[in-house]
């Protein structure tokens, strides 16, 4: 374990998709780092590239049509992009795990819960059938499902959405990974179930001292779980700030817009301040800063040169020529 | 609230015309992207061309018997040789396209004309309507296709109409099932609910909302059906149940030639090849057609 060096470091990651209509740059020169045990939230709307970034870390982007066009992903100092598929398979599920949005499609409907969780132990730790089953039961109880002994023999279709998500978390945590990537894990769940899952994740993250990357379009959800939050727009990271700073003093105009757009009862009497327009066409993005057509601060400079993500104050980074108030 | 002045309405009409043309060319471009579909389309166009312009494309009279020149190999005089009665094979092949398409169009139209409305009504109204129709469809499906065709032709006597019925009846259940399935999946979609909310009549919803969204599988089926119709007609003729001699029909040609295969092996080759090519063409086109009707193909 290296102290001082970040656990996971993404440097200048660029991911493109080759489509019939042209090349779509889904992730554009994105850099961020994640320390041991840190919780990082990545927030963005449709087309922001947040999910593609997450999938790229584990090299799960289907290629073709996608390809990682540039950058490095350093895990414990070693570049994941240089590893072979075999080496990546050893990392996925054991050192870096991921949970997804739709638990029904992420779980194999033909196998029992127990079989699917045991698989992690058998493949990564080489456990026997008996041992892996015991461990599966243990990890199921750590995700607080009622009666793990009976659940272990059930099939995914017999479980509710919240239960399936817990099972997925159990599978992801089975081998005690050092990084957990959660891609919108609660978006498809009811609000009360979402709260349960978020509470569970927080508890497990603290217990196992895992680093967590939590991806969502919901700022509120990310706020409850993460200490640092990155905001993505049209493939680029536009701001990375600590939780407190982001909500009290947002730096990037897009972040400000997102916060203003959340309906609040105090503002019932006036219209919500909506960000005008809609996201640019990623096949043919505007020149300069991609947000400039919708930005209330846009000046000439913004239309010509895209700003880079730079330190603003303390730990906060922003990609804007006129950040802050 | 003013009406749009006449100048503007003229522009509206020309816009609509231009729009229509634009959509057709856009549709063509989608097919063009799929090379195999283009090949299929080409084959079919050749076939239709032959069928339409047969008298202008041929070298001889398809019925002209010339025993002295029977069973000849391809030569300058007879491009594809002659059959056992001395008739020019090439000429009969071209006219064969005419008979093949005649039957195919009639049969397919019959099948679709009955099958599609049955499927719509079944899927949309459900319950006893559905049950009644589907039981009838099941009874048709219970018969093996060719057997049913043979039985129908035998009972209805020969002639074009009985061929239409014999081949067409077979395909009614496929259309009905395809359309019924498509209707069932579209029926609960929000745009249908929205259409009901806007006060549309049931028939309007069925024909103008749901049906156009089911076109893709229908068109694929149409192409395959054409292929099947041609094949069935050939089979029936081969068995002597289709067109009577001396009609130039590919299947009949195969039948006539079969006793002489030892002497003229390639006499069977040409009719057989043409049947295969036509069927291939329709199959390839079917795939391409499906793409044309998918609005997402046109996304910028």
């Amino acid at each position, binding site marked *: 374990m290296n102290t001082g060096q970040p656990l996971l470091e993404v440097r200048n990651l660029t991911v493109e998709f080759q489509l019939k209509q042209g090349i779509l740059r889904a992730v554009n020169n994105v850099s961020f780092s994640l320390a041991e045990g840190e919780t990082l939230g990545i927030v963005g709307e*449709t087309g922001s590239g947040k999910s593609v970034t997450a999938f790229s870390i584990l090299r799960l982007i289907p290629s073709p049509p996608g390809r990682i066009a540039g950058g490095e992903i350093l895990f414990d100092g070693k570049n994941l992009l240089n590893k072979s598929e075999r080496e990546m398979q050893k990392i996925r599920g054991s050192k870096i795990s991921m949970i997804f949005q739709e638990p029904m499609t992420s779980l194999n409907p033909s196998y029992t819960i127990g079989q699917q969780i045991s698989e992690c132990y058998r493949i990564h730790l080489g456990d026997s059938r008996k041992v892996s089953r015991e461990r599966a039961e243990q990890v199921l109880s750590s995700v607080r499902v009622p009666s793990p002994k009976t659940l272990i023999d059930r099939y995914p279709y017999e479980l509710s959405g919240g239960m399936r998500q817990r099972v997925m978390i159990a599978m992801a945590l089975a081998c005690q990974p050092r990084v957990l990537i959660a891609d919108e894990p609660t978006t498809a769940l009811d609000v*009360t*179930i979402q*709260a349960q899952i978020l509470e569970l994740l927080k508890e497990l993250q603290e217990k196992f001292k895992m680093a967590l990357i939590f991806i969502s379009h919901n700022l509120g959800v990310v706020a409850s779980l993460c200490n640092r939050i990155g905001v993505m727009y049209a493939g680029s990271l536009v701001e990375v700030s600590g939780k407190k700073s982001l909500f009290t003093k947002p730096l990037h105009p897009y972040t400000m817009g997102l916060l203003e757009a959340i*309906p609040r009862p105090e503002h019932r009497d006036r*219209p919500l301040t909506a960000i005008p327009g809609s996201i640019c066409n990623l096949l043919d993005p505007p020149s300069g800063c991609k947000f400039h057509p919708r930005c209330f601060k846009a000046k000439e400079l913004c239309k010509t040169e895209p700003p880079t993500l730079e330190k603003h104050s303390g730990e906060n980074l922003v990609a804007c020529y006129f950040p802050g108030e | 609230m003013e009406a749009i002045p006449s100048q503007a309405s003229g522009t509206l009409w020309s816009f609509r015309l231009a729009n229509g043309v634009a959509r057709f060319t856009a549709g063509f471009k989608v097919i063009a992207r799929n090379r195999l579909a283009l090949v299929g389309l080409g084959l079919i166009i050749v076939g239709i061309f032959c069928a339409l312009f047969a008298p202008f494309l041929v070298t001889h009279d398809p019925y002209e018997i010339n025993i002295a020149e029977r069973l000849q190999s391809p030569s300058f005089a007879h491009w594809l040789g002659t059959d056992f009665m001395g008739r020019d094979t090439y000429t009969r092949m071209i006219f064969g396209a005419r008979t093949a398409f005649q039957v195919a169009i009639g049969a397919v139209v019959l099948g679709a004309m009955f099958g599609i409305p049955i499927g719509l009504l079944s899927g949309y109204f459900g319950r006893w309507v559905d049950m009644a129709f589907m039981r009838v469809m099941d009874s048709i499906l219970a018969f093996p296709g060719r057997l049913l065709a043979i039985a129908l032709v035998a009972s209805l006597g020969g002639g074009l109409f009985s061929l239409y019925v014999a081949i067409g009846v077979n395909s009614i259940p496929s259309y009905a099932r395809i359309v019924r399935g498509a209707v069932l999946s579209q029926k609960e979609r*929000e745009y249908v609910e929205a259409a009901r*909310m*806007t006060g549309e009549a049931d028939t309007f919803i069925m024909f103008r909302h749901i049906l*156009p969204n089911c076109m893709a599988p229908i068109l694929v089926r149409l192409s395959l059906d054409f292929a099947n119709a041609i094949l069935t007609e050939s089979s029936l003729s081969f068995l002597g149940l289709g067109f009577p001699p001396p009609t130039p029909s590919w299947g009949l040609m195969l039948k006539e030639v079969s006793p002489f295969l030892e002497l003229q092996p390639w006499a069977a080759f040409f009719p057989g090849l043409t049947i295969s090519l036509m069927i291939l063409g329709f199959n390839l086109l079917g795939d391409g057609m499906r793409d044309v009707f998918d609005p997402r193909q046109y996304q910028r």
Partner: protein
Amino acid sequence: MSMLEVRNLTKYFNLTSGLVGRLLYGERTLKAVDNISFSIEEGALFGLVGESGCGKSTTARLITRLVPATGGEVYFQGQNILALPKKEVRELRRHIQMVFQDPYASLNPRMRILDIVGRPLTLYHGVTGRKKSAQVGELLDLVGLQPDQMNRYPHEFSGGQRQRIGIARALATRPKLIIADEPVSSLDVSVQAQVLNLFKRLQRELNLTLLFISHDLNVVEYMADVVAVMYAGKIVEAADTSDLFTHRLHPYSKGLIASNPSIDIHADIRKLEILRGEVALPINPSSGCRFEPRCPIRVERCKAEEPPLESKRPRHLAACHEI
């Protein structure tokens, strides 16, 4: 007289299919909407909130008669619309319209916007041709779209724009009541704000009455004047919005509001009063309170006896024995 009054509205779905199903599983009835009553004043924005399976979407479809009701009455401007014969339902749709959740599925992908928005004009106002185009243009302008886009197809528009088209279509018949079923749930936050603003503006300008259905508490708290909370087919609490959010009476409302992730920087997930258990689906429900299995304040009585929805404070109804 209130614009809409719902009394004892009920919808049961029979889930058992066939003889074998009945033998194996017994009679299974999904009591999707069970004896609910509420009323909406003219010009008000009524919010109906709840999680999946609570019956809010079914309620919308019962009121618009897209789905036949099992029981109860719905009075629209004094007239029981559930008793109307089929022929007159069409006339009813002139006054009650609906906006749907999925902007991608609620527009016919094969029709041009001109026809999507224009059909109601033709059907209800007999408008065709140039007049139709002109009016469609006006409607598109009213919802913030460019009128010259009317010859395009739905797939050429973004989600937010499609939702606006859906709203324009609903406005075409000049309805008095619009039922919006989760109209912003499929939209990004920034687009959601635009559409919410549009709803508010239209309500003001056209004096519309709105029944707004959502699972998002932030949206409902911002938009609605009156809110009703549904759980497992029943209304568990109903009050003026500010009242309900300040004095949450029913334990489910408390848990629901507490579960709502907020951007309050002092919020810590562990401090929230999280509800345990699964969201109940009202299949063969017990005769007692449907929330009882999850309820933190339940007593013996709750299992056997269903609590009635009654007034606990001025203009504030709740269905619970313990408050």
